[in-house]
């Protein structure tokens, strides 16, 4: 060809271990392109030669038709001299592996799903069917480069038939590291707690047990689930009893969207996210007349729902169940079990049988949980399916390890303009979780080839993550204030630089002044911040006890609003507080005994939940606030309670004493809870907007980021968003990492790294 041109294409992103090279190979054959493709330390490099028109469509298809698990971050082309030839080759990787991007765990692709249920296929009903376009990755990779010996598939040598597929670039199993078949791959078993096989076909028997109302532990991709038939009241009740989990909602898994629609009301965006390769748990509004056991998600307007993402789930659910409860295989508050012996031991008294297999899970990854806010995911937990996907940051920083908070532990490893957030590690107060903080740190550093130059941690001296950071020898440490980290986290994922207003509402965080913050209006950026305003402080009555017992916060707010006489108010829940306890609570309030001042917004929600009679005690974190939100959704009132914003030289205080008085009067007068709850949400949104406008008038800033766990509340987030937008603010919320402490490490990393940039 005389008009031949040759282009060198460098592609960065998740392009290794996801079938990208065979995809390029097939694409080249399709377009009649000559040249080669190779994995290098810089990413995938392609040299493509052909006429200009073919070359252009080849390049367009590289991004347009990329395999489902691939994520292309950048694609650069460079014109080089033609070399002739007609063949296209896959070249093998050269030398040492560079910063390889590991793919998250995927689902089952349509091709594999078809084969799974095709009686003629040799992998018919084989629960470990996979190809380059689908299946587990992150959870089974033990080291890089991503090759079979570096996965938990290492003990399963390929049979001849699988090897033929594995070596054929035209086959969709070409170099699919987890490829397997019933001849050579992992095997499924149904066993009892002593690892003795139960008779019969494991899937059929497990399904049979489930339909009899039994509890089956199911080994999945990132850990064990406990499954019961979600429509069977007795079974769900028994699971709650054995798991010692009284009220926290259980997640559901339904075989397909049609089944989902029988018990929930997903909209189009929610349906798309349910079926996406990440397969998160999506919080879906309940269908009023749904057949699911009321014990699955009591006192809650939503079902956390997911679709099957492992072949085993499809086998178990299809044509059998409308929905299974699929809750993490653990006792309340413990991390999810993922190793077989450990799972059998810990779940022995919960599960009637164990549906297990001999493919090891290397990295525990919990299911991700999202809500949908304005068409985007709002993460409550970001884990399986998303990790270790990168977040791109607007500034370049040196290599940083950030160790996150304590209750929703995640770590972040960042370098340059890329940050990787780890899977959900969990509550570090659990000894096993604390171990997995260390393991995850080591593992991720290895996978990313990243050696941190500094460690970022929370300012809280007693966070176990702080202790972990302090235990890392030599590396310089940077303590980052909690709410500053929330602000930076939201800025970073939205690509913002410079200064913004941060409205940071969460439970509690250690403040720069040693008090307990949590309803903060910060002005600043990665380089620093100023506390421009906060909620008026009230005593956190009994420290963390106030979190378990929201009525304590109602006492604090009533004391602040009415003084010591508040026990005279005619509120039903007040009368329930014992005669012996009243004087003690009053003394605690008056003398501030174990009751540090707090500006927490999460605790304000608790107070209002207790005041309005929603609940005075919680059995899981965030319960009162969630139920208050659900209650508020039932009312359309636009009414707003009175409040004041009090300014001094350096800061402003949002004073809700007038609102608390009005709420107490309304509650005493029997105003419907929904109206009070809704009016409270309205009031908070109005106060936020007022104070932001005041800050804008002084600082000229019109960008507002919303972060902190309180912004998991959609109703509040929508209210604040709309109200600020109406006033001409640019409002930014989280879409890539959670607004709660699960997203904190990203902010810690960028603040620490920004401060340590060379030449500053």
């Amino acid at each position, binding site marked *: 060809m005389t008009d031949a041109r040759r282009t060198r294409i460098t592609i960065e992103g998740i392009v290794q271990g996801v079938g990208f090279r065979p995809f390029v190979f097939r694409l080249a054959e399709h377009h009649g392109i000559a040249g080669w493709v190779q994995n290098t330390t810089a990413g995938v490099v392609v040299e493509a030669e052909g006429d200009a028109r073919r070359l252009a469509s080849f390049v367009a298809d590289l991004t347009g038709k990329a395999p489902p698990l691939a994520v292309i971050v950048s694609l650069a082309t460079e014109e080089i001299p033609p070399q002739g030839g007609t063949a296209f080759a896959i070249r093998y990787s050269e030398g040492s592996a560079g910063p390889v991007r590991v793919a998250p765990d995927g689902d089952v692709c349509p091709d594999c799903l078809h084969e799974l249920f095709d009686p003629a296929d040799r992998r018919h009903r084989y629960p470990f069917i996979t190809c380059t376009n689908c299946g587990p990755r992150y959870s089974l990779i033990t080291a890089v480069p991503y090759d079979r010996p570096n996965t938990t598939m290492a003990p399963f040598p390929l049979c001849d038939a699988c090897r033929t597929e594995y070596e054929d670039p035209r086959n969709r199993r070409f170099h699919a590291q987890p490829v397997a078949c019933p001849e050579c791959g992992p095997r499924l078993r149904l066993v009892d707690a002593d690892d003795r096989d139960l008779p019969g076909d494991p899937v059929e028997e497990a399904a049979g047990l489930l339909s009899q109302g039994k509890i089956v532990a199911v080994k999945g991709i990132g850990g064990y689930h406990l499954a019961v038939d979600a429509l069977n009241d007795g079974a769900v009740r028994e699971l709650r009893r054995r798991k*010692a989990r009284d009220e926290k909602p259980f997640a559901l898994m339904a075989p397909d969207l049609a089944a989902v629609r029988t018990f929930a009301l997903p909209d189009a965006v929610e349906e798309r996210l349910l079926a996406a390769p990440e397969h998160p748990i999506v919080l879906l509004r309940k269908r009023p007349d749904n057949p699911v056991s009321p014990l699955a998600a009591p006192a809650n307007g939503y079902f956390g729902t997911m679709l099957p993402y492992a072949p085993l789930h499809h086998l178990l659910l299809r044509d059998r169940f409308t929905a299974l409860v699929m809750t993490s295989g653990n006792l309340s508050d413990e991390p999810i079990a993922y190793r077989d012996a450990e799972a059998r031991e810990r779940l022995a008294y919960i599960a009637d049988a164990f549906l297990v297999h001999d493919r090891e899970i290397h990295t525990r990854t919990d299911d991700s949980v999202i809500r949908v806010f304005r068409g985007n995911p709002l993460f409550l937990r970001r884990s399986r399916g998303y990790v270790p996907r990168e977040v791109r940051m607007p500034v370049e920083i040196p290599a940083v390890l950030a160790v996150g908070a304590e209750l929703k532990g995640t770590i972040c490893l960042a370098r340059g303009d890329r940050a990787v957030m780890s899977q959900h590690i969990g509550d570090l107060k659990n000894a096993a979780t604390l171990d997995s903080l260390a393991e995850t740190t080591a593992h991720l550093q290895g996978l990313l080839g990243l050696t941190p130059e500094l460690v970022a941690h929370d300012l*809280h001296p*007693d966070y176990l993550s702080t202790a972990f950071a302090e235990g890392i020898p030599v590396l310089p440490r940077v303590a980052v204030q909690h709410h500053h980290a929330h602000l930076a986290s939201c800025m970073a994922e939205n690509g913002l630089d410079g200064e913004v207003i941060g409205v940071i509402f*969460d439970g509690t965080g*250690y403040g720069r002044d040693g008090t307990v913050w949590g309803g903060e209006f910060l002005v600043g950026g990665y380089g620093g911040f100023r506390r421009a305003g906060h909620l008026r402080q009230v005593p956190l009555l009994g420290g963390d006890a106030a979190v378990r017992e929201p009525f304590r916060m109602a006492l604090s707010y009533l004391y602040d609003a009415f003084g010591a006489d508040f026990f005279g108010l005619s509120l039903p829940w007040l009368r329930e507080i014992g005669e012996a306890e009243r004087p*003690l609570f009053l*003394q605690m309030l008056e003398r501030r005994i174990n009751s540090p001042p*707090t500006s927490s917004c999460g605790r304000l929600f608790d107070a209002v939940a207790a005041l309005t009679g929603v609940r005075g005690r919680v059995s899981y974190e965030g319960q009162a606030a969630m139920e208050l939100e659900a209650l508020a959704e039932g009312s359309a009132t636009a009414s707003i309670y009175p409040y004041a914003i009090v300014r001094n030289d350096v800061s402003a205080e949002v004073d809700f004493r007038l609102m608390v008085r009005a709420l107490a009067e309304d509650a005493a007068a029997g105003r419907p809870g929904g109206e009070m709850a809704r009016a409270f949400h309205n009031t908070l949104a109005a106060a936020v907007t007022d104070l932001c406008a005041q800050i804008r008038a002084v600082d000229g800033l019109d960008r507002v980021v919303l972060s902190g766990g309180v912004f998991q509340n959609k109703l509040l987030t929508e209210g604040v968003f709309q109200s600020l937008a109406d006033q001409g603010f640019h409002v930014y919320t989280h879409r890539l990492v959670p607004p*709660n402490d699960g997203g904190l490490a990203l902010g810690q990393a960028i603040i620490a790294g920004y401060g340590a940039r060379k030449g500053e």
Partner: protein
Amino acid sequence: MNKDLILLGHGSGGKLSHQLLDDLIIPTLSGIPLAGQNDAAVVEHGGQRLAFTTDSYVVDPIFFPGGNIGSLAVNGTVNDLAMMGARPLFISAGLIVEEGFSRTELAGILASMRGAADAAGVRIVTGDTKVVPRGKADRIFINTSGIGAVEHDFAINGANARAGDVVIINGTIGDHGIAVMAEREGLDLRTAIRSDCAALNDLVAEIIAAGGDAVHVLRDPTRGGVATTLKEIALQSDKTITLREETLPLNGAVKGVCSILGLDPLYVANEGKLLAVVAPEAAERVLTRIKGHRLGRDAAIIGHVAEGGGRVQMETAVGGMRAVEMLAGEQLPRIC
């Protein structure tokens, strides 16, 4: 925050106290035989092994149910000697009295000191009295030092916990801290809570008689409570200590007050308690002997020692395993 300032937390017995010791006090004063992390130094002179300790008492209030600053000052120092397995012999008494302090109250405190010394079988042999202007001290501060004889020939110290050992406590936890707080804050309690303030040397003699060299560690969980003391032992011995929440002896009234105040009794101070880390074969023998003593009726095995890590964890009532750490200072909220 000004890094030059000494904070209250530096005296809390928690992480900040340890940092101050490790970063400033011990390095500067090295050369003097400091006890490091132990309750008392064990020194040799003229073929005699002696335990030597000192402690200052600044408790507020100075009178509380179950004792006062005087009995506390004697018992605290007696206990620090006893925790090295020593037989306490001699005590000094340094008084710093604020101008205007009541003579009657001083007399009461001194009588308590004498009473505590007699009860413990030690003699107060030297002392010093200073009066400072009003406002320069809070009524009365007392320093006591003590000397005791170490008469056994095996090691009892915080670095001596071994895998397999059991952890015994001689009774309920948190009584002293809650009694003092209730008195200070004037808490309106239905049931009076008394400090457990007592001299433990007699009980220690019984423990050593029963256990001999199977007694590896003795420690009194004072400031910072059982949690902090066990963490110190775990770190010094490089072992993991696992507690079982259900086995922790707890007085019902203390439990009730702690739950209302939101305090974790594991971090509340004791003044008449000891933790004995004992080889498993001697555990029952030692426990029986402790239970037979008037200061050990509620004794219990509360945990065990395993290899590695300098870690303390607690199996909770629902079967979880919670990490137990030393706190920086006061108990601070941590839930976001």
